[in-house]
């Protein structure tokens, strides 16, 4: 319990140091663009590939498991859309990104810590947390919604592709009808809002574990693992809280 409180305190202090006005805006924007490209745009292909396949599999599974004549076939499209919009493209995709981006951030900052690069910044009078972490947090918060929109789009495309396979009587027209049936545009906003919160969780927690590494290469590896585990847990917890607050 003491350790948890200590970590919470350290995290809060680090965020206070991080979320301050940058010393030089031009350097901050340069870093921000770099981070958007490195953490966000670099993840685009993995998001597209995973979303297409998962969208396809969701449609196939629903089609295979709904065989009752009492349930209309457009339910497959409807359910696929709801799963993708409400949970897959935001929560599950961010859990995947927590692994990819979170470990990248923790190992990068952790390596900088053990090789004294962070100390070098501090000696120069640079707020290292602000310079290194703030652009990562903001960059991810800006770009993750873009990834989520791509994921929604490609996930649904995957579902449409599956509908052409004629599994258990599923047809493209019934699937497309289901996609449009009782559509609530608020779900897109809800999903994007969740992803912004997840982006903050991923970047800040991974940065915290990286920034506080003590030791050598082995400890950087441990910090990277801890960052992924902790940010995944926090994403799931945030999902429950936000779903309760926004949908019930």
């Amino acid at each position, binding site marked *: 319990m003491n350790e948890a409180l200590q970590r919470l305190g350290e995290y809060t202090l680090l965020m206070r140091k991080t979320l301050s006005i940058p*010393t*030089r805006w*031009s*350097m901050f924007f340069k870093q921000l663009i770099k981070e958007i490209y490195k953490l966000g745009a670099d993840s685009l292909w993995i998001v597209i590939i995973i979303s297409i396949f998962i969208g396809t599999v969701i449609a196939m599974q629903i089609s295979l498991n709904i065989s009752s004549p009492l349930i209309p076939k457009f339910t497959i499209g409807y359910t696929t859309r709801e799963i993708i919009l409400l949970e897959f493209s935001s929560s599950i995709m961010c859990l995947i990104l927590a692994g990819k981006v979170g470990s990248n951030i923790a190992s990068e900052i952790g*390596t*900088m810590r053990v*090789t*004294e*690069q962070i*100390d*070098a910044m*501090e*000696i*120069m*009078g*640079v707020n290292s947390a602000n310079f290194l972490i703030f652009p990562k947090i903001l960059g991810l918060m800006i770009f993750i919604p873009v990834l989520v929109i791509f994921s929604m789009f490609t996930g649904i495309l995957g579902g449409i592709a599956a509908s052409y396979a004629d599994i258990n009587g599923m047809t493209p027209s019934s699937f497309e009808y289901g996609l449009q049936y009782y559509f609530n545009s608020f779900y897109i906003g809800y999903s994007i809002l969740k992803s912004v919160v997840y982006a903050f969780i991923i970047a800040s927690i991974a940065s915290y574990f990286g920034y506080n590494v003590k030791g050598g290469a082995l400890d950087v590896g441990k910090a990277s693992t801890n960052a992924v585990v902790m940010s995944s847990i926090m994403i799931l917890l945030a999902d429950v809280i936000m779903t309760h607050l926004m949908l019930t």
Partner: protein
Amino acid sequence: MVEVKHIIKSFDGRVILNDISAIFETGKTNLIIGQSGSGKTVLLKTIIGLLRPDSGQILYDGRNFVGLKKRELNVLRREMGMLFQGSALFDSMTVLENVMFPLDMFSSDPYKEREKRAMFCLERVNLPDAAHLYPSEISGGMMKRAAIARAIALNPMYLFCDEPNSGLDPKTSLLIDDLIHDITKDYKMTTIINTHDMNSVMNIGETIIFIKEGVLEWRGTSDEVISSNNKALNDFVFASDLFRKVKEIEGQEQEKK
């Protein structure tokens, strides 16, 4: 001038620095020597503010580093340059970008001027050709030189070097030593070097303090270090075969006279 007064630093109740007081003079290469684990790195880190002393004062030309406010501290930090043991160059930046980093952060000069200044610093350390290479593409000696160029980019008043020769061959070590010494003289800086390399001690040591188990055991100059009667210092200095032989030859010559 940097002056430390009665510095005490402990970790988990274990005293690492015990009442250390010393003066590091301007325009000279001041050396902190001692065996591994003697507390010299802790002393250097305390002087530069990476560690906070339990008690004592660190005076930078009269300004007490320990009691400074954040804004004053940041101003003072810009007057410092540091050469880390592992160079601590930023991996994601080229050598030129590394040298430009402190200028980009704190100088209001236009980009061309900052680039010119960075190139001047690289030329000063004989490294202009490596400007567009990444740290992973250059040798250990070149990394040290690039780190020195970065350290002097803002024209610091104080230069700190932590084991500047570690991992380098004797010839490159000599080059780095000479470079640090020349820069100290050129810019009239207060340079503090933390080392256990006796070649550096003899080559560039102007004022020297010897630390043993967290206590300041001896202070003097490079001329006095060989002839000192301090047993702990002699054990440290003459652990090297080369210096032991030099001492023996000197003894024999004195006997002949």
